[in-house]
């Protein structure tokens, strides 16, 4: 298998390298064309005219430039001996157009002084031709009509045509290497803000232009803290329309899928309705992911959204939802906005799971326990969610109000067969159980925030603003469960146990939180005092939590065959938790700048806080009547450093320190032990103390400011100590019966690292993207196993390497190599586990014609761990897609999934003193035919041609 894999990889690399070479260090000579643009009537050069070079034959854009300070342009990599056309345009001028050819041998054409003629004022409204790109102040504008694309193209196809714009494999968009942080349509968020919904649905022909600009909210640091925003400006009259999809598919093994969606928008309103159902593990958990998965996509190549072959079990999700947004102000700005949004989502999911695992646990330095388990479960759940929000901004006041309600209702049947044995395969015990449960839950939350800062203030202004937010959450859960368990010991038959227990549990509670921040305290108190530029703020967090838990438990009396109340487990516990955290923020900022050279700033933050908690538990059982108060000084602190070097790069460094408190719950202090699950008996420890976590994190990012060959990278490290951590003390007997209670232990340490590097190369006809990211975490956990204190040290890593290659709009290929490892060691027992998972995914999509596309997606998986055999399997999915009707509105698709019939989802993970390997049931080979229709209309009436 690996031979094939290696061969394919080598081939791709070869193709890529060859192509890259062909484009850059090409020995075939590249031609130069230069010239100067002048308005001879007014006698000056045009400094930001747009100059575009097209292939004369078919008007494909080859390159564009904006004239420099001297009114000049100079193209360096034009094809030789091919008829070309140059278009020069500028606001207020007629477009100049000329055909030329760069002669072989000379390789250069000097077009000399090109005379730009002013457009007659009378003809002002007549757009003769627009340049592909223009600068309007600080806004970069791409004019859609200048790019010749198929009539069915969408915005994404347009973006791919623009030099310096990169669409990344993960959906991100960068312009000149800088990431676009938000995308708007006509200045407003579009159907929830997912980039894809706009870029893969909106027809290119409905777009007037795409604007890219910095959103600098702060006058002080114009370029420094700004983020890049993209706005799609629709053509006049196209700001009203709809798009959607209806699709159904049926395949072998009764596999089916169906989905329908419709999105409608007008200048003030947006409404989307979506529904989907299938039995092929295509699960959407929100409105947005449903919408993102029913986009039109257009004629480009795409390698994404396949049924999830890694998902466990067989799922039959059904989902539907609605999304609504209304802008009371048609053209909202940052200062003036009034928007109402609402979402409804219902999901119904049936799934069947079958899992087989084997877990090896160290008992002491020589003995290990091997537990084999089989779990069969079926579940059916219905979740509903309704949320809405209102946002108002007016003259320094900002109000946000949000509410959400969630309901869920589910039934589960869960059967577990477990057997435990020694390393020598001697069976010691079995524990089999059957659980049937029915759960109902409802929760709601309301939150609001108010923020005020005056639009301008002077030295004499006392009150410079405040921020406040309020959160209220409530929940109500109800569960009914029957548990039948049988424990059999092969060592001592007297220990055999059988249970048939019924649970009826109810819980409800609420959480209220109020946060208040008053900035610039020093101004409020002493208008003019400056305190050496130290800034003070008051913060306060108050939260009140209540929880009421009522458990009714009954056991089957085998003699009378009736259920009788279990006096021990029948219980009601009420817990009130009050948390109050007053704090004083102290901040000192330093700035250093030198015009046109650099801007550096450093902020040192210190935020001392006192956290006071009072936990009050009231129970039917007196030993659970525990009232405890906790107090702890929990300071936060940090240093931010920002370094902007004009024309070179900007870098930011952040160092943060924080302290958090964790207090033991009633379940950890004094639980009622349910003895049905002998493989995991939970006991309490009344002596548990609070644990304190101290975290130190550091991050670094580099943003390239050059316009060519940008390279961006990011790095983050987080480390910490937990003192008095609440950890497990595990007692395993020779029959794998586990008793767990919590103890406090010092010495917990952890460190996580994360980083990425990104680089894109754009060639004339193709594009190559490289992306490496890796994260690693290592920790040392204290714990007790059979009363022996041991540290378990763990190391987990996960690295991904992605290469994306696209050639014109015909071919897209993506190679993803993922590599993850785990390693753990128990110091006291001198034992260790390790394993690794390797995955290579090779996806390709080839547009045979404009209407016909072939897709293939192969994943090679390799999973290995200490003490077991390697597991290798390959999943190959392929599909053929045919688009028809005039607007490509209809689609026929034939897919073959898991062609090699090898899918068997592998379980391979490690914890502090055990590791688990196994398999679970997954989706396997099927074939499916799908037919879809995409109704689309942009503008009031579809233009008839």
């Amino acid at each position: 298998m690996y031979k094939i894999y290696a061969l394919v990889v080598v081939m791709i690399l070869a193709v890529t390298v060859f192509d890259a070479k062909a484009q850059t260090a090409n020995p075939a000579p590249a031609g130069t064309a230069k010239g100067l643009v002048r308005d001879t009537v007014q006698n000056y050069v045009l400094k930001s005219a747009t100059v575009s070079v097209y292939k004369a034959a078919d008007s494909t854009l080859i390159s564009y430039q904006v004239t420099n300070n001297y009114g000049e342009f100079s193209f360096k990599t034009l094809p030789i001996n091919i008829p070309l056309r140059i278009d020069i345009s500028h606001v207020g001028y007629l477009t100049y157009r000329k055909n030329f050819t760069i002669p072989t041998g000379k390789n250069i054409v000097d077009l000399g002084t090109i005379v730009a003629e002013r457009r007659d004022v009378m003809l002002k409204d007549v757009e003769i031709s627009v340049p592909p790109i223009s600068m309007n102040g600080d806004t970069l504008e791409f004019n859609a009509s200048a790019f010749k694309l198929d009539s069915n193209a969408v915005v994404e196809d347009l973006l791919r045509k623009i030099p310096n714009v990169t669409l990344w494999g993960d959906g991100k968009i960068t312009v000149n290497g800088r990431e676009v942080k938000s995308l708007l349509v006509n200045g407003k968020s579009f159907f929830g803000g997912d980039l894809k919904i706009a870029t893969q649905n909106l027809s290119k022909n409905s777009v007037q232009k795409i604007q890219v600009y910095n959103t600098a909210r702060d006058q002080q640091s114009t370029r420094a803290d700004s983020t890049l925003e993209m706005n799609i400006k629709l053509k006049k009259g196209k700001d009203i329309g709809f798009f959607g999809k209806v699709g159904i598919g049926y395949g072998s093994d009764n596999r089916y899928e169906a989905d329908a969606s419709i999105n409608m928008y007008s200048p003030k309103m947006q409404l989307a309705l979506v529904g989907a159902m299938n039995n092929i593990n295509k699960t959407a958990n929100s409105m947005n992911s449903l919408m993102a998965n029913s986009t039109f996509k257009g004629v480009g190549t795409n390698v994404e959204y396949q049924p999830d072959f890694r998902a466990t079990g067989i799922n039959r999700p059904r989902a539907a939802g609605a999304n609504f947004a209304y802008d009371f102000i048609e053209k909202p700005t940052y200062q003036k906005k009034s928007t109402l949004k609402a979402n409804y989502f219902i999901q119904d999911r049936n799934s069947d799971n079958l899992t087989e695992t084997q877990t090896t646990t160290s008992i002491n330095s020589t003995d290990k326990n091997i537990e084999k388990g089989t779990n069969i479960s079926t579940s059916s759940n219905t979740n509903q969610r309704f949320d809405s929000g209102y946002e108002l901004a007016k003259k320094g006041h900002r109000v946000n109000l949000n509410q959400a309600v969630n309901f869920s209702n589910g039934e589960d049947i869960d059967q577990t067969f477990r057997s435990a044995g020694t390393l020598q395969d001697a069976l010691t015990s079995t524990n089999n159980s059957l659980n049937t449960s029915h759960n109902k839950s409802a929760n709601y939350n309301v939150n609001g925030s108010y923020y005020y800062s005056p639009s301008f203030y002077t030295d004499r202004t006392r009150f410079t603003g405040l921020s406040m937010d309020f959160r209220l959450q409530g929940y109500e859960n109800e569960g009914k469960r029957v548990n039948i368990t049988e424990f059999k010991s092969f060592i001592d038959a007297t220990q055999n146990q059988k249970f048939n227990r019924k649970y009826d549990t109810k819980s409800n509670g609420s959480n209220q939180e109020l946060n208040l921040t008053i900035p610039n305290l020093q101004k409020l108190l002493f208008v003019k005092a400056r305190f050496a530029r130290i800034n003070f703020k008051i913060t306060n967090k108050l939260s009140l939590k209540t929880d009421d838990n009522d458990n009714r438990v009954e056991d089957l009396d085998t003699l009378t065959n009736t259920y009788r109340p279990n006096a021990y487990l029948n219980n009601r516990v009420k817990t009130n938790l009050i948390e109050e955290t007053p704090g004083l923020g102290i901040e000192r900022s330093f700035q250093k700048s030198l015009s046109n050279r650099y801007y550096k700033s450093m902020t040192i933050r210190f935020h001392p806080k006192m956290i006071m908690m009072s936990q009050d538990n009231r129970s039917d059982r007196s030993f659970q009547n525990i009232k405890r108060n906790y107090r702890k000084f929990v300071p936060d602190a940090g240093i931010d450093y920002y370094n902007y070097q004009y024309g070179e790069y900007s870098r930011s460094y952040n160092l943060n320190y924080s302290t958090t408190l964790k207090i033991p719950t009633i379940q950890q202090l004094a639980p009622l032990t349910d003895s049905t699950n002998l493989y995991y008996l939970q006991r309490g420890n009344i002596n548990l103390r609070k644990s304190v976590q101290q975290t130190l994190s550091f991050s670094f990012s580099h943003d390239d400011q050059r316009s060519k060959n940008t390279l961006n990278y990011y790095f983050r490290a987080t480390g910490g100590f937990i003192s008095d951590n609440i950890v497990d003390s595990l007692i395993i007997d020779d029959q794998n019966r586990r008793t767990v209670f919590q103890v406090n232990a010092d010495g917990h340490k952890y460190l996580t690292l994360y980083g990425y590097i990104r680089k894109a190369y754009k060639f004339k006809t193709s594009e190559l993207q490289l992306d490496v990211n890796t994260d690693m975490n290592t920790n040392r956990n204290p714990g007790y196993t059979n009363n022996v204190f041991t540290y378990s040290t763990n190391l987990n890593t996960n690295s991904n390497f992605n290469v994306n290659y696209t050639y014109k709009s015909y071919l897209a290929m993506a190679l993803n190599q993922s590599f993850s490892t785990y390693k753990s060691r128990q110091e006291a027992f001198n034992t260790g586990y390790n394993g690794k998972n390797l995955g290579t995914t090779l996806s390709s999509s080839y547009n045979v014609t404009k209407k016909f596309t072939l897709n293939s997606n192969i994943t090679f998986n390799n999973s290995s761990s200490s003490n077991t055999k390697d597991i290798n399997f390959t999943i190959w999915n392929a599909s053929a897609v045919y688009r028809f009707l005039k607007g490509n509105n209809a689609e026929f698709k034939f897919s073959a999934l898991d062609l090699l019939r090898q899918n068997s989802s592998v379980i391979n993970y490690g914890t502090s003193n055990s590791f688990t390997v196994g398999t679970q049931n997954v989706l396997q080979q099927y074939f499916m035919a799908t037919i879809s229709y995409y109704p689309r209309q942009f503008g009031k009436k579809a233009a008839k041609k």
Partner: protein
Amino acid sequence: MLKFALSSLIICALSYGQTMAQGSKIDSSKMVTLRIDPSSARGAAVSQFFDEVNFIPLETTKESLFGSISQLKMTDENYFVFDWETKAVLIFTKTGKYVAKVNASKIEKDPDLKDNQAFYGFDLKTEDGKTLIQISAGKKKHYFDLTGKLVKKVDVDKADKYADYKKFGDGTVIDQNYLEEKDKDSTYYHLSLIKDQKKVETYFPYRPGDYKNDEGWHGGSIYDYGNPDEFLYVKNYQYNIYKLTSKSLSLAYQIFFPAVNSLPIDYGTNPIYKGKRYEYYEKNRDLFYEMANSYLHGDNLYFQVRNWNWSRDEKKAFIYNLKSNDLTSLADIEPDSTSQFLPITDLTSQYDFTNHGFHIVTPDYFYTSYSSLAMFTFKEQNEEKNRKYNALLTEYFKTQNRKGNPVIIQLKPKKN
């Protein structure tokens, strides 16, 4: 709407009458009306306006590194630069060689001050035939010699509050914030002429409350164009250029711009704009909300306009020929051999010239500046054309980089 318009008109009329009653009469007998359409501005070659262009890179050393020139003065031997960012006065020779600097470390702090004593500029004084740098900071005036050494410290004389004000040859002082106290009211004036501590004339009265909760206002600006007996004065929200002598203020040029660029006539007085000016400019980006940096040289009237349109193409600095009525856009003065094919201002990057205009205007030379970042950008854009620079610039491009000190540009305007 009509009611509103009518009532605001009445308010305007009333307030106009009220305030005018208190100021001196402005002579407008010699007023010339100019109609200027910025879009008709033409380009020209550097040599059409200037006989000579000299680039004087200011030496960059660890000691002399500074941000930008916010104030420039000179003597026969030296340039003196005040840099706002490093809060320093730097002394260079006329060839740009660094001599010395005076920064906060050399200034005595007021006793109750923790930080460095701030100062916001400097003056040149001559004593016993020697040039001294005078820096007013806190309660003292400090005098330094040309090596940056402190010569003396003098307490600020409260009685002579006009010591450092702009003055005419006959000792008449220009006060831009003159307060006249009468029995009950107190009235300020945006512009007053004071001689021997007594007022000669007062113009543009206002009350402190007039600008309460208003945005971005100022009284007006005075420009020295190298004539010791006359300054140009530009009042905000007006497109008028006044001439100010020691005797009186006269309206010299009344400019009309196309309607799309013009503020409403009552913009300065109508209270409906109060506190909403930024919002108004944001909506009307082509409006010229003020004129600035006006100088007169021969028949050429130099001026800038400001609006909220930041496009690179926007023409905002002009030379208007009073005789020929030709309008030239300063940003479109094309580099030629006179300027070694380098632009004469940094108007395209909207930095030094946009903010300060010419630092110094004398009858013979104008002085402006731009950053080394701009200098190197212009040079890179010239790269393929094999431009030859003089020895000084060749050396500068060879040894310096885009992070060096700004460059002074000395221009010799043609006489006409």
